[in-house]
C-alpha cells in the first residue's frame, strides 16, 4: 500500500509543478535557515570537555578591596591567591593559566619574528583538559618549579614553522629567550576556548572572541612570566602597579586557576578550602571581605559568562520564526492541493477506501515533499555554513556540519512536512463522497 501511495504522491506532485516546487522551496528555505543557525548554536554552546567537564571547577576569591560580600567576586585572581591555592595541591589536578603576547621566531631559519600568543600554565593543564599530543608530551611538575625553558607548540605553528615534521627537541625563540620544544599538539580546537573565558558579563553579548584558536605556544607558568616579563595584561587593577606589565604582587587580578576534583565529597572539601583561604587572608588583612568566594563547575562558569554571542542567539530565534512561517505557508498550500482533489478523493472513498487510507495517502505525499525539501534544505544549510565561514568572527572556522546535525536536518524536514500535512490530510479525509460524486 505504501508503495502505491508513494506512486500516487509522485504523480500528484508532478501534475502541479509550480505548487509543488513552491512547497519544496518553502520547506527547504525554512530548514536551511534554521539548521544553519542551529548548527552554529550547537557548536558554540556545546561542552568543550565532554565527559570531563563535570569534574572541572573554577575557584574564585575576591581580592578587590572596594567590592563587598553581596557582589559577585571579580572574574580573575591576583598572583598571591592564585599561586597559594595552586601550591596547596588540594585538588586532584590544578593548573594556573595566563596568556600574553610576544614575538616568536625560529632561530634556525632566520625568518623575521611574528607576533604570537603564548599560554603559560602548569604541568597538570595537559592531562586535566585531555589535550592531545602529536609528538612528545607536556612537562613535569619538577620543570614547573625549576622554570625549565621548554615549550609545547600547536599543530598550526608546527605546520607553519616546521612543515608538520616532528619538531620535538628543536629550538624556538620566544622574545629573547630560547626554549626547547618538548611537545607538539594534534589539531586541538576547544569551543569555546574555555580556559581563558572571563569577564563575559561585561561584554553585553559581544562574546564571539571567546571562540578564538588556542595560543600558538604553551610554556610552563613561571617560565612564561620570566620570558615575557613586562607584557602581561591585567583583568583589572584597584590601584596602579609599580611597573606596567609586571603583575606579580601588584594590586591587580589577572590569573585563572582551574582545578579537577573527581568525587563530590572532595568538591565540598575544596569549597571549604577556598572559603577558608579567603577568611584567612581577611584575618591577615590582605582581603577586605571573604564572604563571596565561588566555585563554579566549567559549564556553570561558561553559562555565567554567557559565552554564546547574542547575535547568534538572536539569529537562532529568528530562523525558527522563519521556519514557522514556512510551515504555515506549506499548510496553506497543501490544504489547497488536497481539497482541489476532492473529486478524486470522493471516488476513492466511494470505491471503499477508508478515511484512514485517504489520510495515509495524504501524509505520504506530505512526507515526500518534506524529504525533497530536506534535501534542498541540506544544500542551503551547507551554503549558509559556508557564508558563516566567510564572516569575520573568531568561530568562523568551526561552522561545519557534523553527522548528528546532518541527520537532524532530514528528521526536522520530515517532521515539519508531516506536521504541515496533518490538518490538510484531516480535512481531505472528511470529504463527503456522495456530494463530490454528484458534482463530478
Amino acid at each position, binding site marked *: 500500500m505504501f508503495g502505491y501511495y508513494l506512486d500516487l504522491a509522485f504523480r500528484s506532485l508532478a501534475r502541479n509543478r509550480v505548487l509543488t516546487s513552491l512547497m519544496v522551496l518553502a520547506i527547504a528555505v525554512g530548514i536551511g535557515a534554521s539548521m544553519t543557525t542551529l548548527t552554529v548554536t550547537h557548536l558554540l554552546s556545546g561542552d568543550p570537555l565532554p565527559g570531563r567537564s563535570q569534574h572541572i571547577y573554577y575557584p574564585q576569591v575576591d581580592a578587590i578591596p572596594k567590592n563587598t560580600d553581596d557582589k559577585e567576586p571579580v572574574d580573575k585572581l591576583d598572583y598571591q591567591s592564585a599561586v597559594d591555592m595552586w601550591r596547596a595541591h588540594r585538588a586532584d589536578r590544578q593548573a594556573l593559566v595566563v596568556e600574553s603576547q610576544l614575538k616568536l621566531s625560529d632561530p634556525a631559519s632566520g625568518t623575521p619574528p611574528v607576533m604570537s600568543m603564548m599560554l603559560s600554565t602548569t604541568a597538570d593543564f595537559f592531562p586535566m583538559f585531555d589535550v592531545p599530543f602529536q609528538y612528545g608530551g607536556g612537562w613535569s611538575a619538577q620543570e614547573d618549579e625549576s622554570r625549565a625553558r621548554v615549550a609545547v607548540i600547536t599543530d598550526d605553528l608546527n605546520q607553519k614553522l616546521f612543515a608538520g615534521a616532528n619538531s620535538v627537541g628543536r629550538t624556538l625563540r620566544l622574545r629573547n629567550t630560547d626554549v626547547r620544544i618538548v611537545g607538539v599538539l594534534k589539531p586541538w580546537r576547544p569551543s569555546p576556548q574555555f580556559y581563558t573565558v572571563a569577564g563575559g558579563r561585561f561584554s553585553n553579548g559581544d562574546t564571539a572572541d571567546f571562540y578564538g584558536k588556542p595560543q600558538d605556544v604553551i610554556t610552563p607558568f613561571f617560565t612564561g612570566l620570566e620570558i615575557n616579563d613586562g607584557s602581561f595584561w591585567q583583568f583589572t587593577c584597584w590601584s596602579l602597579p609599580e611597573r606596567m606589565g609586571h603583575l606579580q604582587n601588584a594590586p591587580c587580578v589577572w590569573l585563572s586557576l582551574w582545578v579537577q576534583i573527581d568525587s563530590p565529597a572532595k568538591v565540598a572539601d575544596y569549597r571549604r578550602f577556598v572559603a577558608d583561604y579567603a577568611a584567612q587572608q581577611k584575618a591577615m588583612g590582605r582581603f577586605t571581605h571573604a564572604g563571596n568566594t565561588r566555585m563554579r563547575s566549567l559549564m556553570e562558569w561558561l553559562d555565567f559568562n554567557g559565552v554564546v554571542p547574542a547575535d547568534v542567539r538572536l539569529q537562532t530565534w529568528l530562523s525558527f520564526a522563519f521556519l514557522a512561517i514556512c510551515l504555515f505557508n506549506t499548510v496553506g498550500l497543501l*490544504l489547497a492541493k488536497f481539497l482541489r482533489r476532492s473529486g478524486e478523493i470522493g471516488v476513492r472513498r466511494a470505491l471503499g477506501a477508508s478515511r484512514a487510507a485517504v489520510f495515509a495517502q495524504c501524509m505520504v505525499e506530505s512526507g515526500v515533499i518534506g524529504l525533497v525539501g530536506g534535501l534542498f534544505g541540506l544544500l542551503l544549510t551547507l551554503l549558509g555554513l559556508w557564508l558563516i565561514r566567510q564572516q569575520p568572527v573568531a568561530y568562523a572556522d568551526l561552522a561545519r556540519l557534523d553527522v548528528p546535525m546532518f541527520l537532524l536536518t532530514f528528521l526536522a524536514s520530515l517532521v515539519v512536512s508531516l506536521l504541515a500535512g496533518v490538518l490538510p490530510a484531516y480535512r481531505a479525509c472528511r470529504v463527503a463522497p456522495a456530494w463530490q460524486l454528484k458534482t463530478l
Partner: protein
Amino acid sequence: MQIKPILSALRRHKAGTFLIAMQIALTLAIVCNALFIIQQRLTHLSEPTGIDEPNIFIIQNEWVGKGTAEQVDAKMREDLAVLRALPGVQDVTPSNSYPLRGGGWDDSVKLKPDQLQDTTGSTIYFGDDHFIDTLGLQLIAGRNFRPEEITAMDVRDRLGPPVVIVTKALADKLFPDGDAVGKTIYLVGGPTTIVGVVKLLQAQSVDRWASAFAYRSVIVPRRLAISLGGWYIVRARPGQLDAAMRAAPKALFEHNPRRVINDEDGLLSFREVRSRAYERDRGMAILMGVICVVLLAITAAGIVGLTSFWVGQRRKQIGVRRALGATRQDILHYFMTENFLISCGGVLVGALLAIAINLWLVTRFEMHRLSLFYLLTGVVILLLLGQGAVLAPAMRASRVPPVEATRSV
C-alpha cells in the same frame, strides 16, 4: 463593494483564511523587528568619527631589534620628519592608536584624587602638537599643545602629563556647567590640567562594551616610544591619498630599513579601518535584509497559491455572478477586498505580535523599543504585498466567462 457577502464566504474557508492571516501576522512581526534591527545597525555604523576620514591613512610601524626609549624616540622623530617632507602629505602625528581601531588604552578619569568610583571611562590617545591638524579636529575652546609640552614616554612610565586636551563629550560629562578649560582632572598617573576642548573624536572601540564612554577621549601630549613600535596617523593632501599611501612606506624604508610594516594591516586607509570596525554590524544588517526579502517572497507565494485555489474552486459561482450582471471589475474587486480583509486581520494580530517580540528582545538582547514608524512601515508593506500577490489570481477570476454558469452545475 459589499463586504457582507465576502465575510460570509470567508466563513466557509476558515482554515485557509486563518492560515493566510497567521502567515501575514508572523511575517509582519518579524519584518518590523528586522527592519528595526537594520536601522539600528546602520545608524551605528554611520556615526561620525569627527576626523577627516577621506584623507587619512594609518601606518603601523614595528621596529626590528631592541632599543631604549630615547633611541626609539629619536628614530620616531626622524620618521616624522621624513613623512612630513613628502609632497603628498599634509601632516603626521605619532600615536598609540586611532579611532575605530577596536581597542587599546582606555582608562578611568576622576575629578578628585581620593575618589573610589571612576567618574567615567575614556579613550587615551597619544599625540604631538600636530595631532589636531592631522586628524582635522575642530578645537572649540582653549589651545593646542605647544611643541615644548611634547615629550617621549616609555610604556613603563606613569601616565601623568601636566596638560591634556579632551573631547566636548568628555568635558560635558566631567563639567556639566561648561568651561572645562583650566580645570584639573585625575588620570591614572595623577592630576592634569585641561588646556583645550575638541568638538568630536570617536573612541578606539565602537563595540557594545565601550558604548558607555563613546566619544569621550583624552589626548595626551606624549610620543609613546616603545621598542615594539606604534602608529603614524597621516593626513594626505586632498585628492592625493593613493599617492601618499604609496610614497610613505617607501620613504620610511629608504630612511631606515630596520622595521616591519605588516602586509596585511600595516598600511590602512581610514576607509578600510571603518569598514573593518563595522564589519559585524554590516553583516547583521545584510542578513536581516535578506531574511525580510525571503520572508516577503514566501508569504506572497503562499497568498498566490491559496487564492489561485479559491479562484479555481469558485469558477462556477463567479460564472453565475457574471451571468447575473456583475462586471469584470466587480469580480476583481471582490478578490482584492477579500484579501484586504484577511490582511487587515493578519496585520492587527501581527502588530501585537511585533510589539510582544520587541519587548522580549528588549529584555533578552538589550535592544531599544520598536518605534511606531517601523510598525506602520511593516503594515503598509504587507498590505501592499497582499494586494500585489492577489492581483494575478484575481485577474484570472475576472476573466471567467459568464457561460461557466451553465456548465454542469
